[in-house]
């Protein structure tokens, strides 16, 4: 398991046979994961600039390596209480479809090699994230719910456009 760090993170190496490389975060007491290949690095969030009229899942923007990135609060996108934005808050910089963004959650756990044999279709009614789950699995740290992040981000944005 790789530890989160401020240093640029290299793309994950190929997983061992029978393992899926996922990137894990904690949100609302749950453990969520998505394709590790989406993540380029983990950064400590500095002061955010809040945007007037922004939906709750977009708590602000910040500069990173000369680019301005939008911060997406995974907790809010999953209709959970907002993630903490304390001084030690970290976010995963990733590319989801056409969007490059920083994903904020209650905690960034990092890379996890989840045995593919543990991955199963999500059970019906798996809480607020049910609509965005592609699988549930388990590794040495416990159960993990795998998200279709692209669909979640697109849906959150569509909701804000319709509101």
């Amino acid at each position, binding site marked *: 398991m790789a530890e989160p760090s401020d240093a640029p993170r290299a793309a994950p190496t190929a997983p061992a046979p029978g393992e899926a490389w996922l990137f894990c975060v904690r949100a609302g007491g749950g453990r969520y994961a998505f394709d590790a290949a989406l993540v380029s690095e983990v950064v400590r969030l500095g*002061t955010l*600039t*809040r*945007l*007037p*009229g*922004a*939906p709750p899942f*977009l708590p602000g*923007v*910040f*500069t990173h390596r000369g680019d*301005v*990135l*939008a911060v*997406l609060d995974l907790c809010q996108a999953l209709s959970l209480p907002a993630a903490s934005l304390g001084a030690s808050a970290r976010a995963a910089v990733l590319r989801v479809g*056409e*969007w*490059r*963004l920083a994903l904020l959650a209650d905690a960034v756990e990092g890379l996890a090699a989840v045995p593919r044999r543990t991955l199963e279709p999500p059970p019906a009614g798996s809480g607020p994230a049910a609509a965005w789950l592609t699988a549930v699995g388990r590794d040495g740290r416990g159960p993990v719910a795998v998200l279709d992040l692209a669909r979640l*981000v697109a849906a959150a*944005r569509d909701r*804000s*456009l319709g*509101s």
Partner: protein
Amino acid sequence: MTGAEPVVLFQLGPRILAARAGGVERIGNPREEGASRLLAESCLGRPWVPLRSLIVLSEAGLEAGLCVDRVLGVRSVDAADLLPLPPLAAGALSTAAVAGLVMLDGAPTPLVDLPTLIREQQQAAARDARSTDA
């Protein structure tokens, strides 16, 4: 990109915001302006103490303005420091009046399109008035 653009920096409640100076007709005192043509509150929030107003001209040539706490000054920024909103945020905001960002001392500051803000708020007020009448 080259060239410089003057922007007006102002404080509105807890926020520091910017607007293109070329769009600001003048800086006024809310106590001396007609209250009906000033926005005391908008999607940008409400000033703690409205000591100044930024006056713009509408398409019809009429003056309208936004009450703010303080005008912090005019800064000339390089055109390269005027940035669009990140794609995820663009279009997700409830207002079209946040036209982009200005990089000031390395930090992004929302760039407000004052005429758009005032037009949006006036249209919203007109809608509210119609729904009240109905």
